[in-house]
């Protein structure tokens, strides 16, 4: 089982988001070239789970195109931390927006292979 979120990106469009239900989970937002710019989670306080949170992401883009991929996951908290650590392991630093928002210590992960 891959611990990375490696399914293909989709375009962040209302149609694609509407295919998602209000489930809890994690997601990644990427620029059109595939550079991940944010790793987020739809947690227990989100009104409509992944569907609602990704709609907010779309609104915040103000028409700028973006990609996304997601994973339904009730353990969204530990999965989110894992994805952040994996990103640092792979790219040396957090995605730009996570760097700005984060105010807690992040762990270190060195996955095998």
């Amino acid at each position, binding site marked *: 089982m891959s*611990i990375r979120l490696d399914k293909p990106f989709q375009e962040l469009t209302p149609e694609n988001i509407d295919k998602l239900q209000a489930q809890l989970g994690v997601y990644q937002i990427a620029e059109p070239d595939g550079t991940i710019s944010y790793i987020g989670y739809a*947690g*227990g*306080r989100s009104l409509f789970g992944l569907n609602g949170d990704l709609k907010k992401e779309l609104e915040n883009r103000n028409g700028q195109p973006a990609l996304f991929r997601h994973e339904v996951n*009730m*353990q*969204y*908290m*530990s*999965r989110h*931390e*894992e994805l952040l*650590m994996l990103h640092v392991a792979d790219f040396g630093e957090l995605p730009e927006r996570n760097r700005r928002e984060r*105010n*807690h*210590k*992040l*762990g*270190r*992960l*060195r*996955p*095998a292979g």
Partner: protein
Amino acid sequence: MDYQMTDEQRIIIDMVRKFVREEIVPLEDKLDPDAGEIDPEDHARLVEMTKNMGLYGLGIPPEFGGPEIDVTTMTLMAFEMAQHRAGLYNPCYSVFGGAGLAQLYEATDAQKEKYLYPVLRGEKGAFFGLTEPSGGSDPARAIQTRAVKDGSDWVLNGAKIFISGADRADFGILFARTDAEKGRGGITCFLIDTDMPGFNVRRVVHTLRSARYATEISIEDLRVPEENVLGEVNKGFAIANDRLSRQRIPYAAGCVGVAMKAQEMAIEYCKIRETFGAPLATRQSIQWMIVDNEIDIRTARHICLEAAQKADRGESFRTEAAMAKLLGSEAGGRVVDRAMQIHGGYGMTKDLPLERWYREMRIRRIGEGPSEVQRLVMARDLIGGSFH
């Protein structure tokens, strides 16, 4: 007979209860229901408050700067400190400070300087690395991580699993086999810096506890200097066992605290929720759930305090601590489960803390020695002899 608090204990407990309800619980209203941490600014502010209360550094021996508080009072406090959403695994978000790993108080002066004091100052975090893929209940036989002497160093190879917080820790206590011929007499405890080459956290182990996750560690040709042996070579098992016994009382008290809060919620709710024209509180099946909860809570509370009082008197408390751990975790699970039943659908939601307690309480029957191991410990003490 219920435990009669002294006037001083009553003052402390009232202060802690007020602190939890007025400072901790309101912060959680804004956090994700699975959050494991509060904002660092809030943390710093609350630490100042606990320092002003004279209660910071709970569990740290007074000679190392901790407050003069006996085990019984700490147990009474632990009942209160757990009474919030994250309370089972992060009581009051650690704003009462932490004692760190108890074994470090027995370390050499140089080890204390490098590891213990930075922990007490809140500068370093540590992990406890005992469990391996081959098993955790019986570490004396299960440990396969090997340490081989090479010059003045030890070279370690192996793997650990379910290790909480290893990814964020600066160092950890790690148990390895130094003599393959001897079972429990062949295990040594090492102090490992997490930036030592050969130490790698390979993955997050996702469990029911999403906030404070466990990790899997690989140890490949990890070179550890001789001065990082904690205690004596081949005497590490006693260190592991000692920690497990000591930990059982606060561990059990946390379960009881959560159960007390769940019961409070269940009582409040059954009085206001009406079905078939009358409050739930008037139904015998609900009343019996409340009564069964109370029996569970009082029994577990009583044993926790008995263990704590024996510890304060300097008597052996191993049987009582094992009983408290067993009763606290099992009774706590039953109480939370009944409280959820009384809350109906709302009990299943993330709107209430019951759902998180239910998941995390389940782990309490496994972590820090599963129920079966607690029974084994008690049986050894009661029947005598050591079953190998």
